Every structure is written in structure tokens, then in C-alpha cells.
């Protein structure tokens, strides 16, 4: 186990460095460059830039989302590195069988997501301190957004890893996409023809209100917000359970998948 984990660290040094650096780019540098007036650089002021960034929390949220997308891609590299028949058969012959290899991959992926969360938190602390130092403004904390992001990432990885293991990263991504569109199609069929609960119309109204910007003027939480919070409440438990189930499924699929790898 230690040896396999060491192998992952050696093999994925680049991934770890990128993961630690992505939040610096997404949370600080990109929004900062967005607010610099390149036509009038003499008027540049850090205090002004930080104040502007702090005034647009939605932009910071979008940057968190951007970081999350990058991480989704990076995690696939962890699996891509070991995608060969020879390695899989060798792994299956190790003490503890292929289960140890899969276990290490899951632990390492979890560590990568944890590192991303820590990196986000660290760079946000830097941002908060710099903002306060530059212009005495208290930046709103996004730590709960990062926490939600962590569990969403965990849930997504739980879904996609068995596809990677069974079909390889390239074909696995396509298979996952097909499954995703199939689910959307089924959902659409249900929305159009299926028996809908009474509260569904209200939910759609809330969604429409939110999209039209009317939600900001509402003082009471709307249906969408209520259900959103309830789903959010179950997210940590669902993500952890899904990750464990995903590991069990991947263990069963490992050797079947190895037969289909190209290399």
C-alpha cells in the first residue's frame, strides 16, 4: 500500500503541483487581470482592484466553478497513467490483488481533492489578508462554497471512476457522457409525460423567477432554494456513500476493463 501510494506521488508530481496552483490562478490572478484597466496602467491601484473583486461575489463563484472543471480533467490523468494491460495483470498478481491498486487510486484521488480544497482555502486566506491590508475591507468567506465543491467533486469522481476503470479514460469519458445524456433524456420524458408532483409547477416557477433575476427581490426563500438547501444537506452523506460504492464496483470491473485497454 505504501509503495503504491509512493508510486502515485512520484507519477503524479505534476498533477499535485497543478492542483496547488489552480486556485491561485482561478481565485486571484484571473479575476485580478479582469479588473485591471490596461489602457490606463498609471492609475493602477491594488486597493481598487481588490475592492472591485470583492464587490462581485458571483465572479468569485464562477472562478470556483472554473477551478472545479480543471480538476475534473486533471483527475482523469491519474487513471490515464496506468492504463496498460501489462500493468493491470502485474497489479492483479501483487499481494492483496487488484483491490489494493484500486484502493490506492481512490485514496490518492481523495487526497488530490483534499489538496485542492486546502489550496483554495489557503489562497482565499491570502486574498482576505491582502484585501484587508490594501483597503481595510473584509472579504466574504467562500469556505462553505469550497466545501460544497469538494463533495460535488467527490460525487462526480465516484460516478466517473468506474467508467474509467471499465473502458479506459478515453472511451470511459464517452460512455459517461452517453449515460449522462440518457439520464437527461429520461428526465425530459418524465417531465413531459410522467406523473408530476403538485409542487413541481411551483418549483418551475421558482426556477423561472431565479433565471429572470426576480429571486433577488424576494425576501422569503422560494421553493427552488428550499429544495436546493435540502439536497445540499444530504450531499456530504450521499457523496461519501457513493464513493465507497464506486470503489466496490471498480474492484469488480478492474480486470474486465484491462482486457479492453488499447496498450
Amino acid at each position, binding site marked *: 500500500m505504501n509503495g503504491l501510494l509512493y508510486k502515485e506521488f512520484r507519477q503524479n508530481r505534476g498533477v499535485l503541483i497543478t492542483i496547488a496552483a489552480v486556485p491561485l490562478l482561478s481565485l486571484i490572478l484571473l479575476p485580478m487581470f479582469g479588473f485591471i484597466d490596461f489602457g490606463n496602467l498609471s492609475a493602477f491601484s491594488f486597493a481598487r482592484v481588490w475592492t472591485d473583486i470583492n464587490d462581485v461575489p458571483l465572479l468569485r463563484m464562477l472562478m470556483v466553478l472554473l477551478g472545479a472543471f480543471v480538476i475534473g480533467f486533471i483527475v482523469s490523468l491519474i487513471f490515464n497513467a496506468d492504463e496498460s494491460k501489462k500493468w493491470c495483470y502485474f497489479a492483479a498478481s501483487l499481494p492483496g490483488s487488484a483491490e489494493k491498486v484500486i484502493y490506492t487510486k481512490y*485514496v490518492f484521488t481523495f487526497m488530490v481533492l483534499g489538496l485542492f*480544497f*486546502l489550496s483554495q*482555502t489557503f489562497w482565499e*486566506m*491570502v486574498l*482576505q*489578508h491582502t*484585501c*484587508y*491590508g490594501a483597503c481595510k475591507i*473584509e*472579504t466574504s*468567506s467562500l*469556505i*462553505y462554497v469550497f*466545501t*460544497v465543491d*469538494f*463533495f460535488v467533486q467527490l460525487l462526480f469522481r465516484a460516478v466517473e471512476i468506474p467508467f474509467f476503470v471499465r473502458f479506459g479514460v478515453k472511451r470511459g469519458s464517452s460512455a459517461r457522457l452517453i449515460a449522462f445524456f440518457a439520464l437527461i433524456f429520461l428526465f425530459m420524458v418524465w417531465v413531459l409525460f410522467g406523473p408530476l408532483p403538485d409542487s413541481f409547477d411551483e418549483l418551475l416557477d421558482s426556477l423561472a423567477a431565479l433565471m429572470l433575476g426576480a429571486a433577488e427581490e424576494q425576501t*422569503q*426563500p422560494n421553493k427552488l*432554494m*428550499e*429544495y*436546493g*438547501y*435540502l*439536497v*445540499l*444537506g*444530504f*450531499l*456530504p*452523506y450521499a457523496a461519501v456513500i457513493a464513493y465507497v460504492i464506486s470503489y466496490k464496483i471498480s474492484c469488480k470491473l478492474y480486470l474486465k476493463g484491462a482486457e479492453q485497454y488499447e496498450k
Partner: protein
Amino acid sequence: MKNNAQNAKRLVIFLLLAFGISWIPEIILNHTVGYHEYFETTHYALFTLPITYGPALANLLTRLITKEGFHDMKLHLRLKGNVKYYLMAWLLIPALTALGCTLATSLYGKWDFAALKALYGSPKLLAGTVLFGIGAAPVLAFNTFGEEFGWRGYMNDKMKPLLGTTGTIVVGGILWGLWHAPLTVEGHNFGKDYPGYPYTGFLYMAILCTLLGVLLMYVTEKTGSIYPAAIMHASLNFGAPYARLLLTQGIEEQPGFTKEQFFEYIPIILCAAVFTVLLLMLMKKQRSADAKA
């Protein structure tokens, strides 16, 4: 005998470092920027987090200074066969807090959710917030890892051969409580307006840390890893307040340690008593296994 002297020397060095690394910046910050500024706002978090890592740094430095080496640091996950202890670390403290708060509200408060409903607007919103708060607490374990890596990861191991299990629980708890003194003086946890301030505050903190120390020591001993203790500590700091938010009704927050709070802690006290017995049994079993070997 030589081993005991060596352990005592290492323990003293560790304690001096753990207290020094955390207390010196805390006292300086208390007197310069003030407790509220550096501990309760977001813009000094960059400085606050390293302070809580004082015991962790002391662990590493003591190993380096005494040439002990970096083996047996309890940094392995040891998930196999220990998932139940990880789950326990995640959910036990919020569950005990929920039980205690239900007891306190039944005795001294009143069941009235109107104020909470007014605050959150809807029961679904409240349920989502509480569930997420408790569920997400382990992710915030990076805040508590520093303390656990020092206290449970090093101090307890050095103290056990010198003072035995019961001695480690009591003396370790008192020391851990005392380590919070620069914060307790500034009103952390108990405020400032209570009889005997700040000395009774130190006493409350020492008692609380002794009780909670038992639970944290138990999961560490059972798993041989400090992560469950860090998760349990995070659940206490970040998860349990959500259980309290939901179930403490009609009880006004008061400074100091009130009788209502005592009832909130009854399940934790009972659990600590049970875990002490379990720990003593575990240690006895380990000693007899060592003797046989």
C-alpha cells in the same frame, strides 16, 4: 528506567515547544490587534491557523531535537477494519450534543421553533443547513489536525508509560485545557462575565478537555491513526454547533458554565466514563500481549 527518563525529557521539550509556539504569538496578537480581530474575523486567518498548529510543530521539532526520528507518527489512514471508528469520529459528538441539548431544553427551555423558522424562513432550509453543517465538518479537520497531531499523536504516547492511562487522561486533559488559556482570558467559549473570571474559565476548559480527550484518545488508540481524532475534533468544533442550533430552544446564552450547559454535556460525560473503562481494558490487553511477546 532509562526509557522513562528519556520519555520525560521528550515530554518536557514537547510541552515547552507546544506552549511556546502557540502562546507567544497569541499573547502578542491579543495585545496588538486584539482577540476579536485575529480570531473572529476572516482577515487574520492566515496567522490564526499556524497558531493552532503549534502542537504539531512541537511534535516534529521534538523528534528532531531529541534525535527520536520520524517513525510511528500515526499518519497512516488505517481504514481497514476501522471504518466504524471513522464513522464514530464523524457522527458521535453531534449525536451526543443533540441528546444533551434535547435534555437541557426539556428541563430548562421550551420547544418553540418559531424563532428558528423566522430566522431561516422554512423548515427545509433549516434542515438542509443543519444536515450540511454536521456532514461537512470532517472536511474542516485541517483546522484541528495540528492539535491532534501534537496532543494525541505525541504527548499521549510519551505520557502513558510515565503516568498510566488514567494519569494521561487527567494530566493530558488539564494541559490541553491550559493550552487554551490565552484564548479563555479573552472570552473564548465562556465570555468574560462570569464568577471567578478567568480562573474558573481555565478550570471549565480543563474539565471539558479531559472529557473530550478520553473520546479522542480512544479513537486514536483503536485505529493507530490521528485522522479519526482530527475528524472528531472538527465535528465538535464545526458540526456540534448545528445540533445545538436546532435543539437548544428557549435557553438564553449566558457567559460562564451554566447548569443548562451541564445538562447539555451529560451524554458526553457518560460516554467519556464508558470510554475510560474501555480504554483501561484495551491498555490492559495491550500490556498482556506485550508481556507474552
